Each structure stands twice: as structure tokens, then as C-alpha cells.
């Protein structure tokens, strides 16, 4: 069932259950190795396809403010293409993982580890691949940017839909099978609607996170080539290169307008509309409202659009009948199942081993294994920075968030604001911060922490607000009546109450900080180059040098760190939160 928070408009991100993972198993190691092999494979493929004459058409970014609306639209288009690709991916992947027992064993660990690979690390590897795919045009760069944004959005939505499918009310599943719905009918009549609320909410928050990677992926240097796409991110970069902070400021204002606009015109109506799909049979205590949706509902336009689409829907219903019922034969011969399992496992195992062998040879010839140890050391420094970000955000924002969350009026206004803060790509503010660092002589070793925090801290605030508003009022009233001293109130009521939400926020914030480290540990302003010692700067510098073996090493080590910290720290905390502290 969907989450039971009493106030529908204050939910955690990601939604409850989307972070639940099975326990650590050897499959995780195999999957990790497999993904490393795939990344390595893409790299080699890109090199094989690449010829020195293959270049991308690099746009010249003008910094005239008049060009801003066009650049803004290009950026927006990129975001939405990536979003729709994410939705399509979610539909296919989550359904496959939920329906097929055999696939689930592999698909969920794959998703989990993909979520731990830094998005911008993906970008460094895939950009040469895409450019080689579309030589001479801008399409390769667009694909690389869209792919980067896609990887920032898709995993959360997929986990959310998977969780919704797996916790679908059993009787609805039985009714669908008993009435013999076809696979297509069942998908659109039952699976998608029952996942809708989680999909829309997680989609909205993931979309917000995507702005960051949009800005980061529009201007990138690989090797001796400098690639730019027309968009707001590259506009800001061009302004920074020229040293014109005024133009950067205008661009930031346009960005804010775009973020807020998409929120109000697209997401809020969608969230309000998705209330229709709530599975609990009584109405939610507080319905999210949207003026845009009310306007749409009162107008005739949706009716005009829907009328020609209905026969199309019916035609699709008829056309997909041959694909069979949403059923599974109740009995499969036992021997056939295990034979298939053995073949499947054997084939994938062989491919992975071969890939590891080739990868090992490659590393031996190029970077050498010493780089791995170096990366591990640098990774530890970055890990310390991430830890500081999470700890300081906790100390600062948990009290604030709890205070806001316990007042229904405040939280109703605050959550949308915090959501915009979390959506706004903090990377656009980096130039200002860097100017201050240069003036004050602060090294990026410490300043990088602030840069990483700029984007990541909001997730802790957001989730703590959601958690505080979910504390049942009767418990709060009880604390009032017994006149709890504030220490006791915090220790026994508030902190345990918000704990599950805090852990959710902590995991998300930590993930965001790791991702940001690639652009936060290294900075260029005019003639000044700042660099911190850490894994993020290592990867960024390797990308600029075009040294792909180093890039791959860095990404593998960073993913390893994220996966290990997740398994050792965050998942047990999450499990504790779900069992002992859930209300």
C-alpha cells in the first residue's frame, strides 16, 4: 500500500519503502564486477570507434542576455526528454523485476549499484562513446547530456515503482488474473495506477535533482577538447570564463524562474491529479491543491484531447491481445526451471570473467594497479568531506526541520520552498562561492565541503520536515499535557519519531554530496585553478586530461566507497528505522 503519512502533501523523498533492499549477498559482488566490466566495455568501444577526425560540432555560446530564453528552452527540452526516457525505462525495468523471479535476483542489485555510480562519472565515459556514434554533429553531445540527466532520475523512480508493484494489494492482483486481463490491460489498468502516487512524487523530486546534472553536463572538457551545448549551464560557464558575474546573475534568475515554473505548471497539477490513485479507500487528510489543475478541470480542453485518443487506446488494447494474459502458468516442470537457471548463470558468469580478465590486462598496460591504492586514499578524504556535510547538515537542519514540521501551517508553506531549494542546481552558485574563496584564501580542501553542502543539505531538511509532520498529534498532545521538559520531549518523542525520515534524508544527502564532489573539488575561475585533494578532483582532472584508465579507476573506487558505506552504515540504520522506530 502507499505510504500512510497523514498529510499527503508532506512526504519523504524517496517515498517509504523505495530504499528497502535485500540483505547483502554474493550477487552484489558479481553485479559490481559486471557493471565495472560494462563501463570498461563502453570505454573500449568508444576508443575503437573513435578516429582523430571525429569531432562534435561545438556550439559557440554567446553571452548576450537576449539569447537566454532560447538557451533556457534547449535546457528544458533536454530535461523533459531525459524524463520521458526515465519513465519508459521505469515501466519496463520495474515490471520485469517485479514479475520475474529469476530476473529480480539480478535486476535489483544492478539498480542498486548503478545508483551508487557517480552520475558525472558516467558522463566522462559515455561522452566519447556518444560522440563517436554521431561524428560531426551536435547529436552526440546532446545524447551524452541527456543520458547523464537520465541516470540521475531513473533509479529512484524505478525503485519506487518496483516497491509499489511488489506491495500491490493481493486482492487486486487476484481480481485482475481472475477476470483474465491481458498483459497490456493489466499494466495500464492496475500496475501503473497503483504506482502512480509514488512515481509522480519521486519523479518530481528526481526531476529537481536533475537540474544539477543538466547544468554540469552542458559544458565539459575531455582531453584537449572542450564541448559545449547551448543551454543555461554553458551560458553560466561562458560568463564565468569571461569574468562577467552580472550575466551569471541574470542566468541564475532565469534558472529560478524555470525551476519554479516547471514546478507550478507541471508537477503540482500532476501531484494533485495523482491523488485520484490513492489505494486507501478513505480520503487523505489534506489534499494537495493546484490552481492549474482546477483550471484544467473546469475547461473543455482535456475533453477535446481525450476524444480522438480513445479509439487509439482501444486499438492498442486489441493489438496487444496476442501477447497473452497477465497470467503465469501455475505449474512449470521443475527440471526445466533449474536447467534454465544453470544456463543463465553460466553464460553471464563466463562473460563477466572474460570482461574482468580483459579489464585487468588493460589496467596493467595503462595506469597500473598503484592507481587503485592512490584512489582509495583520495576516496577516504572525499568520504570525510561527505561525512562533514551530513553531520553539519544534521546538527543545523534537524532542529529547524522538526520545528517547521510540527506546525502544519509552516510546513505547508515551507515544503514547496525547500523543494525548490533542493531543485535549484547549486552548481550555478559555485562561481560566487569560488570568488569568495579566492578573496579569503580558503583552500578548496575545506571550501569544497561548503560547495558539496549547497546542494545536498536540503534533502535532510526536506525529509525531517516530512517526518516531524507525520508524528501523530495525539503523541504531541500527550507530551504537552504531561509537560515534558524539552530535553525529554526531544529524546523520547521527536527524535525517535523523525528517525526513519532522517535516515532517508541522510542517504539521499550523502549520495548527492558524493555526486557533487566531482565538480566541487576542482574549480576554474578565469586564470585561477583551485583543486582539493580528493577522489572527485582526481576524476575531474583525469577527464580533462583525457586519461580514461584513470577515470575508470576513480569511478570504480568511488562507487565502491558509496556501496560499502551504504551497506555498512545506511542500510542497517534504515532497517532499524523501519523495524524499531516506525509508527
Amino acid at each position: 500500500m502507499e505510504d500512510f503519512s497523514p498529510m499527503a502533501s508532506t512526504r519523504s523523498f524517496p517515498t517509504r519503502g523505495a530504499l528497502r533492499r535485500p540483505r547483502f549477498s554474493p550477487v552484489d559482488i558479481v553485479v559490481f564486477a559486471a557493471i565495472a566490466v560494462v563501463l570498461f566495455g563502453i570505454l573500449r568501444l568508444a576508443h575503437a570507434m573513435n578516429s582523430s577526425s571525429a569531432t562534435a560540432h561545438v556550439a559557440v555560446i554567446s553571452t548576450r542576455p537576449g539569447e537566454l530564453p532560447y538557451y533556457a528552452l534547449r535546457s528544458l527540452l533536454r530535461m523533459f526528454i531525459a524524463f520521458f526516457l526515465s519513465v519508459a525505462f521505469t515501466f519496463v525495468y520495474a515490471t520485469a523485476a517485479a514479475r520475474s523471479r529469476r530476473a529480480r535476483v539480478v535486476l535489483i542489485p544492478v539498480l542498486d549499484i548503478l545508483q551508487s555510480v557517480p552520475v558525472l562519472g558516467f558522463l566522462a565515459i559515455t561522452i566519447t562513446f556518444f560522440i563517436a556514434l554521431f561524428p560531426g554533429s551536435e547529436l552526440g553531445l546532446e545524447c551524452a547530456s541527456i543520458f547523464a540527466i537520465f541516470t540521475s532520475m531513473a533509479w529512484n523512480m524505478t525503485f519506487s515503482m518496483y516497491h509499489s508493484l511488489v506491495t500491490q494489494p493481493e486482492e487486486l492482483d487476484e481480481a485482475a488474473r481472475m477476470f483474465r486481463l491481458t498483459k497490456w490491460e493489466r499494466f495500464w489498468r492496475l500496475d501503473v495506477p497503483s504506482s502512480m502516487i509514488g512515481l509522480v512524487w519521486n519523479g518530481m523530486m528526481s526531476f529537481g535533482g536533475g537540474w544539477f546534472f543538466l547544468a554540469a553536463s552542458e559544458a565539459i572538457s575531455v582531453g584537449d577538447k572542450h564541448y559545449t551545448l547551448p543551454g543555461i549551464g554553458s551560458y553560466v560557464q561562458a560568463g564565468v570564463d569571461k569574468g562577467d558575474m552580472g550575466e551569471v546573475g541574470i542566468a541564475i534568475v532565469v534558472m529560478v524562474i524555470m525551476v519554479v515554473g516547471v514546478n507550478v505548471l507541471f508537477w503540482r497539477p500532476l501531484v494533485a491529479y495523482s491523488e485520484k490513485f490513492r489505494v486507501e479507500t478513505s480520503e487523505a487528510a489534506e489534499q494537495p491543491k493546484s490552481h492549474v489543475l482546477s483550471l484544467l478541470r473546469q475547461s473543455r480542453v482535456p475533453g477535446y484531447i481525450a476524444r480522438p485518443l480513445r479509439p487509439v487506446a482501444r486499438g492498442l488494447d486489441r493489438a496487444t491481445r496476442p501477447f497473452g494474459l497477465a497470467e503465469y502458468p501455475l505449474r512449470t516442470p521443475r527440471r526445466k526451471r533449474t536447467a534454465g537457471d544453470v544456463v543463465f548463470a553460466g553464460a553471464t558468469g563466463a562473460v563477466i570473467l572474460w570482461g574482468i580478465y580483459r579489464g585487468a590486462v588493460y589496467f596493467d598496460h595503462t595506469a597500473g594497479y598503484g592507481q587503485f591504492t592512490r584512489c582509495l586514499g583520495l576516496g577516504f578524504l572525499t568520504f570525510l568531506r561527505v561525512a562533514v556535510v551530513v553531520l553539519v547538515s544534521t546538527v543545523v537542519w534537524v532542529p529547524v526541520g522538526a520545528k517547521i514540521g510540527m506546525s502544519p501551517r509552516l510546513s505547508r508553506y515551507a515544503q514547496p520552498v525547500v523543494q525548490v531549494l533542493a531543485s535549484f542546481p547549486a552548481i550555478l552558485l559555485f562561481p560566487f562561492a569560488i570568488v569568495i574563496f579566492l578573496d579569503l584564501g580558503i583552500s578548496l580542501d575545506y571550501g569544497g565541503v561548503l560547495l558539496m553542502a549547497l546542494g545536498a543539505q536540503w534533502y535532510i531538511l526536506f525529509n525531517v520536515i516530512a517526518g516531524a509532520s507525520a508524528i501523530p498529534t495525539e503523541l504531541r498532545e500527550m507530551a504537552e499535557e504531561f509537560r515534558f521538559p524539552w530535553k525529554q520531549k526531544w529524546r523520547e518523542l521527536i527524535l525517535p519519531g523523525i528517525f526513519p525520515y532522517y535516515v532517508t534524508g541522510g542517504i539521499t544527502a550523502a549520495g548527492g554530496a558524493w555526486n557533487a564532489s566531482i565538480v566541487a573539488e576542482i574549480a576554474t575561475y578565469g586564470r585561477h585553478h583551485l583543486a582539493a585533494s580528493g577522489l572527485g578532483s582526481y576524476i575531474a582532472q583525469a577527464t580533462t586530461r583525457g586519461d580514461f584508465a584513470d577515470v575508470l579507476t576513480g569511478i570504480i573506487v568511488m562507487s565502491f566507497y558509496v556501496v560499502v558505506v551504504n551497506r555498512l552504515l545506511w542500510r542497517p540504520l534504515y532497517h532499524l528505522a523501519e523495524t524499531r522506530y516506525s509508527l
Partner: protein
Amino acid sequence: MTGAVPGVMPSYEPTGNVILGADHVARQFTTPDGRPLPVLDDVSLQLHEGEIVALLGKSGSGKSTLLRCIAGLIAPTTGTVSYRGTPINGANPGVAMVFQSFALLPWLTVQANTEVGLQALGVPPAESRKRALAMIDLIGLDGFEQAYPRELSGGMRQRVGFARALVVQPDALLMDEPFSALDVLTAENLRTELLNLWGGRDFPTKAILIVTHNIEEAVQMADRIFVLSSSPGRFKAEIHCELPRPRDRRAPEFEALVDQIYGIMTEQVTPKAGQQTTVVEPGLASPTEHPLPHVSVGGLAGLLEILSSRGGRDDLPELGRRLTFEVDDLLPIVDAAEMLHFAEVADADIELTPEGQAFVDADILASKELFAAAAAERAPLVRAIVRALETTTDRTLSERFFLDLLQRAFSEEEARAQLDIAINWGRYGELFDYRADDGELILTSPDDDTAN
């Protein structure tokens, strides 16, 4: 398979073709240990045209599992289910099902919900709309076509469930405790309307199979009543009812039949055909042979007090009626009272024993002691826990120890439930305590006044 009880009803063989057949159906599932646990054991059943059959049993009798096997939603471990002679391997094509919790799609209107089955069959939209509206009319929901399920009451939602099932004109209608989520008046109303439809001309369905734990509902509706025993579900008895419909609850034949069924259901464990019954001494029964009924001490004490106020003796069906308790609510408490020797059951009558009377008359401290003594001696799991705790040096044991033992014979949830009941009883009798944080059971020493 005919268990016609002598002296009550003449032999009755159903006429009409066989629509559904379940042949030696058994269903097992494996415990976390890897042992097979039977849920259903060798049940055979046939549904003929023109009859209503009720599957009656307590919880744990596997009746819902059997219904789902017949509907083709789950596979029996052994045995086959057939529709008009053809075995099925997937959803049964000739049936439609009505669910206990309605199973309506919350994002579709009443009309859209009703049309779901028709659209899945590929019926063209115009005809589907016509049939759906006609059925909505017939079922009494005219005017509510555009309402969403959350705007409807429970009874109206179940009407939508009926409309959705009947509009596809199934050969057989399967119902899984369709009225148990409704209040008594609405349930009675819907039952009567369904029986009216059954007797009328417009009813497309040729047979009905209803699963229920309400004895009176079964007698009111069914031509044949199939009683299943519990844990595992086995055929216990088959009762035929030829009373003309509409059936009067107050008629003596009706009450006699209800009494008879109560008597059958309160009998001890039914042995497998051919086995001898061995009476197991309560002092020697193991926790897995004689599981604790799902009853709290408060519920048990309440029943005994009611009995005492009635003079120490009452008629079980009458008691159930007065408390509006159904078999699932009443019989576990009766089982618990019997287990602890606080009451005796004979012929659908329940009577307080002297120990039970003493328990009712005592004040709270004395009654705790009486309960503790009875539970420590006669409730197998409580006895096992107390004895095990007495033998350890520090008088504590992890719950894991008992859960592992219980999981050899029960599912994970049932094992947990059994332990929770034992903890409830043990705490009430101050025999032992339980610390949820680390899952430790601690024996209370006689001079322990305060809990740790």
C-alpha cells in the same frame, strides 16, 4: 464423500452436470526449515448446476485456499481442478469471484469497474456499456454509475463486486466470505437480495460456491454444506439442506441444523480416514500437536463470566447469536476454555467446570494464580516455556529457541503468533516476562514484585 447424517435429512444427490470439480486437492507449503506443512489435505468436491454449496470452517481450515485453487489463482500441490471436465492450469475460465474486501479498482468509477471483465473478454464498447448499465440497474446501484469506490459504503462496494462478477455471465460464482466485511444489517440485506436473484429468471449463473465461517449464513443460503476441519483442512462432514427458500431463521428445522453443525465443529480433531483416534493426555501433548487458540486472557475471562451469569450452562449457537459472534470468534475462546479445563462442551452445549466457576468468583490476584496454575499445567506451549526456563541457570532464554521449535510445525507467522499468545498468557499469570528489545523470556521468581 456423502456424509449424510442419519436421522436428520433424507439422502440427497445433486442433479445437473458437474461444473467444477476438485479432485484430491492438497496444498502444502514449506516452513523456513524446509519441512512441508499441509494447509489442505486430500479434499475433493464437485459443484453441480443448479446448486449453492457452502464451504464452512474455522480459520486455518484452508477454505479460502481451496476456493483459490478452484478459481485457478493458486496451484494445488497435488490433485487437479477441472472446469466441465477439463483440468485447468491458470485462471478458471468459467468462474467469477466476489472478494471479501471487494477488490475494486479505486481509480475507476462504478461503471468502469463493472466493465473491467467485459473489456478483458474483448466485448465491443457499445455492448459492454449496455450490459454494464443493465447489471448496475439489476443490482440496485442505479444512479451511482459515475461514483468512485471511496464515495460508497461497504454494502454498495460489494454490490459493485457482484455486478462486476455477474456481468460476465460466469458459469459458476465463487464468493470468498463476501458479507463478513459488512455490518449485520447490510449483510442480511445483500444476502436476501442475492437469493432473490438466484430464484429469479435473469440470473445468468448456474451455480454458487460460497466460503463462510458463519454457520447461519451457510444454512440460510446453501443446498449442501461442506464442513472442513482445521489445520490441516480436511473434509469433516457434508450436510444437505432441503428447506424451501426463503428460509426462516426461527424455524425449528433451521435451528436444529445450526445446532448439529455447531456440534460437528466443536468435536475434537478429525482423524484421517482409516486412522484410529488416539486421545492424547493433555499433560503429554506437545506445543505443536495442541496449538494455543488465538485468544487473549481477557476474552476467555469474559466468556466465562457470561457463562456464569447464565447459570453456568448455555447453548453454543444461542450464545453466538446473542454475542453476534461468528464461529471464528467464538470457537477459539471455547477451545481455550476447554484446554484449561474451565469449561466442558458436549452436544453444542457449554458448561462451566468447578475450576471455571472458581476462576470467575475469585478476586483479581487469586484468579491470576488459578489461571497460572491451569496454564502451566494444561497449555502445552506455556508449560514447555516454564519448564525450559526453570532448567536454565539464569532463568532466561532467547525467544529464538522457541521460535525455531515452533517453526518446525508452523509457518513463520503462526509460530510468532503462538509465541505471542503464550507470552500474553504467561505475563497475565505472572509466570514469565518478555523483553521485546532483545527477545528474552525471563522466569519470574516468586519474590519478584517489580518487573525488570
